[in-house]
């Protein structure tokens, strides 16, 4: 920036940066939206794309906790599992229509987030371990509930309500809602406050940021979306059981996909999910037995050689792009 640039010049520049930012966001969002919109129409692989959207949503929500707020919830699957069971129980036992049950999954996620809120005063490794333990508690509590509610070890069948194409479009709506929320968050006061608190809570407090409240809001956004994802996935597969709903691998994949793309950017988790889900599918098809091993090794390589993720590394090389890339 030239030294003589005045306040007015700077605000014009900021406005143009904003314009590029939102244009880029709209172009990316539009492309992603149209692409997914035509998947069922062109009879492409619905299952693959359904899970791709699911992982994009999960990784983006995780990004709100890990990238924006600086928490590493290694028990992220708790929200997903509780959301899945909420939808399944409401549909199965209380006869709710699925579309009406899904918002309750989100509410359940938010309630769970509120219950876990006291852990937000922990940081770093303590938070990660406690989160892991809380997910364990959730799994055990649900698997010890009476069989007529949760279906016991056989799981809950939602009945003949599977509608892959409908659940596909609902998943798409959820994904777009999540991406929109995060796009808004990354430029909003709340998002800036979250980043400030992440970088230095005391300094943010001094500047008048309500640290507790800001952290809580970020946390609840991160809790809402995985719970809805769980509900939609329950609808899509038509069955829920504790082993798959609370599988630690769900957390592992979410974390890995988000980190692969780069935490703290809107595009990071999208890029990470697209690349990794596609790779995962490729590996799965070629070597079904080695899938787990390769996932593990990929995680190690990622941490060692690309700790900032794909988008994060690009932004590190070209810091000036940071203003334009969502």
């Amino acid at each position, binding site marked *: 920036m030239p030294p003589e640039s005045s306040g007015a010049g700077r605000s014009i520049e900021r406005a143009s940066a904003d314009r590029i930012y939102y244009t880029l966001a709209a172009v990316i969002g539009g492309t992603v939206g149209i692409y997914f919109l035509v998947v069922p129409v062109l009879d492409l692989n619905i299952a693959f794309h359904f899970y791709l959207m699911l992982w994009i949503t999960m990784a983006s929500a995780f990004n709100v906790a890990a990238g924006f707020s600086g928490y*590493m919830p*290694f028990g992220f699957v708790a929200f997903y599992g509780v959301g899945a069971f909420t939808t399944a129980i409401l549909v199965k036992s209380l006869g709710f229509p699925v579309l009406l049950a899904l918002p309750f999954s989100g509410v359940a996620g938010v309630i769970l987030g509120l219950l876990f809120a*006291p*852990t937000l005063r*922990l940081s*770093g*490794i*303590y938070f*990660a*371990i*406690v989160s*892991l*333990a*809380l997910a*364990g*508690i959730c799994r*055990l*509590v649900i*698997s*010890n509930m009476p069989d007529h509610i949760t279906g016991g070890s056989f799981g809950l069948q939602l009945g003949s309500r599977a509608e892959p194409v409908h659940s596909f479009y609902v998943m798409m709506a959820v994904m777009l809602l999540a991406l929109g929320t995060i796009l808004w968050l990354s430029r909003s006061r709340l998002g800036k406050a979250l980043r400030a608190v992440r970088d230095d809570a005391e300094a943010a407090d001094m500047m008048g940021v309500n640290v507790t409240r800001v952290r809580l809001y970020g946390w609840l956004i991160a809790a809402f979306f995985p719970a809805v994802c769980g509900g939609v996935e329950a609808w899509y597969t038509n069955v829920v059981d504790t082993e798959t709903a609370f599988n*630690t*691998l769900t957390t*592992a994949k979410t*974390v*890995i996909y988000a*980190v692969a793309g780069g935490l703290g950017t809107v595009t990071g988790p999208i890029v990470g999910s697209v690349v990794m889900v596609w790779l995962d599918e490729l590996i799965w098809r070629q070597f079904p*037995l*080695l899938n*787990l*091993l390769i*996932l*593990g*090794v*990929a*995680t*190690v390589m*990622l*941490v*060692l*050689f690309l*700790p*900032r993720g794909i988008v994060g590394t690009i932004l590190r090389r070209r810091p000036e792009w940071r203003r334009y890339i969502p």
Partner: protein
Amino acid sequence: MEILVLNGIVNGLIVGGIYALIGMSLTLLYGVLRIVNFAHGEFVIGGSFLAYALFSNLGLAPLFSLPVAALSFFAMGWGAYYLLLPRLQKSDDPEIMSFLMMYGVSIALAAVMLLIFEADSRSIDYSFTPISMKVGPIYVSTARIVAFGIVIVLAAALTWFLFRTLPGKALRATIMNPEAIKIVGVDVVKLSAFAFALASAIAGVTGVLVALVFPAFNPFSGAEYSIIGFIVVVLGGLGNPLGALLAGILYGLAEQLATVFLPQAMAPIVGFGILVAVILIRPTGLMGWRAQR
């Protein structure tokens, strides 16, 4: 009822001894290297599978697997240190990234064990004669008593090593103040490699004992032991080996007594509950020796 409680206490001590060993090695790793070893449970189960493989292929009794496990895991730990750690230390937040990296290692190790041994639960079909012994009014299997004896010897040896020998004191000094130890002229890289190797060796040996004490293990039981390890480490205060020893035994007692009074499936909930409560109320651990770090 008294018999049940007594049973709970005896088994609690035995199981607790195992947990204490897991906790001690895990806390040593954290203290010296600032690494949260998510894969520690897989190291342990790896030891169990080593004993299993040696017994079913060569007919080697589990007791003779102990030195084999110690040596091979020591070597593996040494290698793994130089393979993984130097690069990890360069990242922005090594502590949380180590958690993620070891998460990957744990998935990979579980997958390797799954490929070699398949998903079935295994147990070593080896029994001592006599099969069980009378301790007071109750019977305890000989395997468990032998395992407990080994736990005591190992814990005592480790404590002696940490408090009475020069390398052990250097390890403790690194836990307390990693900057100062560099100034004194200790080769921290070598010391860290040694700590990683030592912790892996203890984990491997613990795995052999796990095969003796617990009825069965499978490639995915590692995660349980990792979590128990975390509970013990946090209870004892991060980076405090003696705290981990005490916390392990306390946790084993709590878990086994919980199975006496509560349904079997509730025992892990008690464990997780203790962990969450301790972290929220008293993050320095039960002993609260902050100075030990």
